[in-house]
């Protein structure tokens, strides 16, 4: 029998989960684990702040569909993970975090670098475990990966006391695991699917609304097949962006507070919404009581607790979305009906024309919308874009087209500033051959710009595009619109100098002030072996439109001031 330590049993368990890459920072309570990583074949990407390690693991998970792994020591290491893990939780991203903990004999004694990791992470994870013996470790890791990656995916934390890491003995590695009280997959109800098909075929003005669940489950090609078979227009939520190509003729783009005109208007006029893997967040639906007025809501969802939570469903099917979507497709395939020539199709066409007319009013000036369109042209279709949070994110949602699932990575639920850059570095670690663009603002960039160090030392080059208005731009926009332009604590006074930041971290930095300069900088950046920070000055007065004011419904969208 091989003798294991708790730490080597952890590393062996990770390898059995096919983990070849982890993101983290070592500390006192993880010394045995870090020692066991030496020569293990698992690559460790050294972050400079645990929040970044969590966002990197999250970015890795979102582009790959695999579980991302983050590691941190006890106490401050684990509290620094909190924002990153909460971000993953709100967007259902499969992340496993391994944290060190003080020895079991010191638990609860306010020992050096001790916090109640299990208590802290409980409300922001699918599950938290604390193995108390060496033999608990393999089972805990197996359970963590199983829970993170099954059902509605999400983060799981395994908190390992130092004495457990150091304990010596035999270890058994289970091949499979069942967890009593955890039933991730529910077989969809065939009769319910039949009813949904019948209702769907009766609708005069249907729309399909696709959310992040469709991206996670990979069901979007089948959903698109349903849409194509019946000629139903498709809108997405922010989290669903990329689930179907923005270039597809049936695509309307995203709905919501800063949704596309055509998506918000078509949804408003629809008489039925077939929603797939959405949770009807307040930023998507806006006024929830008006959202469903005069509409039949059909909800296909894996998580039963989402049904009727924010929007009451007239019909729903609970189960794995791939299975549900496939069964629904087979059911509608037997029936012929096509809306191509219907008055609804004509109406949608008209709305799209209105939308395009509005877009044509957008200038080609050197402003975020045109800059984003230009960057899209300069990038290959499979390029991945990550965003930060705020104006940069909403501009990207509106003006940066994406063509495939898992190529648009954003913090939708928690809205975490500082997410964009580390998520991009994590995405690059999964897919070094694909260009990764991170669209950020000057506020959020500074929150996690230490990830530039990781990109430099670990050889993970990305392109960072900073829309630099020297403002906390979205807050400033709201202060302009709803607080009589009284600016309060939003001016960043052009500090720091982004080019010097880039230089200090050993990466390229360039400021561009025209489309030509941008194009030149981009072409160089695409070939560069280090990260390029492209600093783009933007007027602090620039607003994001369309916008639905809080309390309004989607049709109340303000298109231009």
């Amino acid at each position, binding site marked *: 029998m091989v003798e294991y330590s708790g730490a080597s049993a952890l590393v062996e368990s990770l390898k059995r989960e096919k983990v070849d890459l982890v993101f983290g920072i070592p500390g006192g309570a993880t010394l045995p684990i870090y020692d066991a990583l030496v020569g293990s074949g698992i690559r460790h990407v050294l972050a400079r702040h645990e929040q970044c390690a969590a966002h990197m693991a999250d970015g890795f998970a979102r582009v790959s569909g695999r579980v991302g792994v983050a590691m941190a020591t006890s106490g401050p290491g684990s509290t620094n993970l909190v924002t990153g893990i909460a971000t993953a939780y709100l967007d259902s991203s499969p992340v496993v975090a391994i944290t060190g903990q003080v020895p079991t004999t010191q638990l609860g004694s306010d020992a050096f670098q001790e916090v109640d990791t299990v208590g802290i992470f409980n409300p922001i994870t699918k599950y938290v475990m604390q193995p108390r013996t060496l033999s608990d470790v393999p089972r805990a890791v197996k359970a963590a990966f199983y829970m993170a990656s099954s059902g509605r995916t999400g983060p799981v934390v395994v908190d390992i006391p130092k004495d457990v890491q150091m304990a010596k003995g035999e270890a058994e590695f289970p091949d499979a695991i069942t967890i009593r*009280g*955890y039933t991730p997959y529910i077989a969809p109800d065939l009769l319910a699917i039949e009813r949904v098909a019948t209702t769907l075929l009766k609708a005069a003005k249907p729309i399909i609304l696709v959310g992040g669940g469709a991206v996670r489950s990979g069901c979007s090609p089948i959903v698109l097949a349903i849409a194509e078979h019946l000629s139903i227009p498709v809108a997405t939520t922010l989290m669903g962006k990329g689930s179907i190509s923005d270039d597809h003729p049936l695509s309307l783009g995203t709905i919501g507070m800063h949704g596309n005109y055509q998506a918000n208007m078509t949804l408003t006029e629809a008489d039925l919404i077939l929603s797939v893997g959405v949770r009807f967040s307040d930023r998507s639906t806006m006024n929830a009581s008006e959202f469903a007025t005069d509409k039949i809501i059909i909800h296909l969802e894996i998580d039963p607790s989402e*049904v009727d939570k924010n929007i009451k469903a007239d019909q729903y099917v609970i189960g794995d979305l791939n299975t549900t979507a496939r069964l629904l497709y087979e059911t509608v395939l037997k029936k012929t009906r096509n809306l191509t020539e219907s008055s609804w199709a004509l109406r949608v066409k008209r709305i799209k024309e209105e939308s395009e007319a509005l877009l044509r009013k957008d200038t080609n000036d050197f402003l975020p919308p045109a800059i984003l369109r230009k960057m899209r042209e300069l990038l290959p279709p499979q390029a991945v874009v990550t965003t930060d949070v705020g104006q940069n994110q909403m501009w990207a949602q509106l003006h940066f087209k994406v063509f495939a699932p898992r190529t648009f990575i954003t913090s939708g639920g928690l809205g975490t500033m500082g997410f964009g850059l580390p998520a991009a570095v994590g995405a690059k670690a999964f897919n070094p051959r694909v260009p990764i663009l991170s669209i950020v603002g000057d506020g959020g960039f500074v929150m996690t710009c230490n990830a530039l160090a990781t990109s430099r030392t670990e050889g993970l080059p990305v392109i960072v595009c900073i829309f630099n208005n020297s403002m906390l731009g979205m807050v400033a926009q709201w202060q302009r619109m709803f607080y009589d332009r009284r600016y309060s604590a939003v001016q960043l006074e052009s500090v720091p100098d982004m080019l010097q930041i880039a230089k200090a971290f050993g990466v390229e930095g360039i400021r561009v002030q025209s489309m030509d300069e941008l194009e030149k900088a981009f072409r160089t950046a695409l070939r560069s072996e280090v990260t390029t920070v492209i600093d783009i000055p933007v007027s602090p007065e620039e607003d994001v439109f369309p916008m639905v004011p809080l309390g309004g419904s989607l049709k109340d969208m303000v298109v231009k001031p």
Partner: protein
Amino acid sequence: MSGKGELKIFSLLVNNKPGVLFRVSSLFRRRSYNIESVSVGPTGDKSTAKMVITMLADEETADSFTRLLKRTIDVIDIVRLNPDQAIMSELALVRVKTDGLSNRNSVLAMIGAWGFKVVEITKDSVCVQVTGNPPDLENFIEMASEFGIEDVARTGVTVLEKSRPQGQA
């Protein structure tokens, strides 16, 4: 947020291990709902526990808690019961003040009339073990309060679903 509506009863079968009560009670805490009572104990199978939680809520709220509890890992099974579908039982220890012999005799007579068990008698108090339906307990406590109550400890209600009458599906 809490205290409105009628009594809702959740009977949960859960894994019998540390942290489960915390996970379950956190769901209520996060949404600012007060748990009226909770009682937990192992079942015949030591690896599981029965957890009975009651709250005051409308039907819609109770539905949403049912869904959240169902989703909670470690909750193996959940049954939601209305008071008329459940055999409900609770235990309370009530220490009633007595003031002289005649007063003590009156207290003991009242307890005897209810058929409850006296578990302690001191010079100036009588402690009684009260069991039954929560409304019975409340009636008793109200009557005893005329004598003066020194202390009360209640276990919280526990329930079993009523068996269906024989011969019915």
